């Protein structure tokens, strides 16, 4: 074997090791996901203003998910505001790799068309979706969301009780972190960054 071949083999070996170590380091930087979160979540198919939309449509994006309803005057707009701030703070370079989903648990009043307009007001990257009570019930169980609609909804201004989690979902559709509407947007952005790499 001549010297130049040995030299190239050595360079190749060094390069491969360097790439391997880099990949390993990147992997190591991914935060540990608490066991409780690993059993939560899962894919879903709901209805948006532009047709069926599922969590799988957000593969490759780091996504914030919130369950609420549009008649909610306080907590829901707070949560959406925090989500938008966090998405912006996550950085300009990640702008097209972050997204949001607002899932309405109040399909009686929140149509997909209305939800589309509602969510876009906060940020075009946030999609508003809803579905049937059966679909929403199944997602709520899988995502450990608790919500309660009043028995009597004849008064059109009824309130809906609901969990106030903001979920951080990684590019593979897995829940990796949990916040709420009181969480500082800068903290959410910090927690999003490792998943954006």
């Amino acid at each position, binding site marked *: 074997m001549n010297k130049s071949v040995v030299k190239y083999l050595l360079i190749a070996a060094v390069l491969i090791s360097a790439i391997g170590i880099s990949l390993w380091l990147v992997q190591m930087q991914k935060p540990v996901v608490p066991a409780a979160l690993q059993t939560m979540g899962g894919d879903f198919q709901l209805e948006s203003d532009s047709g069926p939309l599922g969590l799988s449509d957000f593969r490759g994006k780091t996504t914030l998910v919130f369950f609420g309803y*549009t008649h909610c*005057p306080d907590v829901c*707009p707070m949560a959406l505001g925090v989500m938008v701030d966090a998405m912006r703070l996550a950085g300009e370079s990640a702008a097209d790799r972050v997204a949001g989903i607002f899932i309405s648990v109040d399909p009686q009043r929140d149509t997909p068309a209305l939800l589309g*307009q509602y969510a*876009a007001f*906060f940020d075009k990257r946030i999609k508003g979706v809803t579905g049937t009570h059966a679909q929403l019930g199944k997602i709520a169980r899988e995502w450990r969301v608790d919500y309660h609609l009043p028995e009597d909804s004849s008064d059109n201004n009824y309130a809906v009780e609901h*969990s*106030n989690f903001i979920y951080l979902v990684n590019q593979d559709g897995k829940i990796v972190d949990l916040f709420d*509407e*009181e969480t500082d947007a800068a903290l959410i952005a910090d927690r999003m960054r490792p998943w954006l790499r």
Partner: protein
Amino acid sequence: MKWVLLALLILLPAQAAYAADMMVKDAWVRLMPPVAQNSAVYMTLKNMSDADIRIVDVSTDAASSNGFHTMRMQDGKMVMHHVDSVIVPAQGEFSFVPGGFHIMLAGLSRELHEKDVVNVVLTLADGGHFTLQAVVRDMRMGHGQHGGMH
């Protein structure tokens, strides 16, 4: 509703004896998406007298129904409770803040835009009225949820 509000505004000077002890700081309304039916008013009320001031009712010129609400965690859910009255303690303050107490604007009667003014009339337990103006604030562009009170 509008006539009632106008009447209240006219009557205000004559009934301001008790209300004169109160001051309002930073009253604002959350700008909501145009399709939204509801919004909320936030503010801090300061009582400069030596007696508690109880507020028993509220009306506005922006919604068909108004009331005092508070948010509370109950069994893991955010539950909105209606409260009949709020008390501004003697020589103290009472704050309506996001995530805490708010004045609910249920069934907005007009589309609100940033910097619009909403007239608010608080009815005190002694029958007096306290009027104030709350400005519509757009909270989207990095104003932050907690920025409202600073």
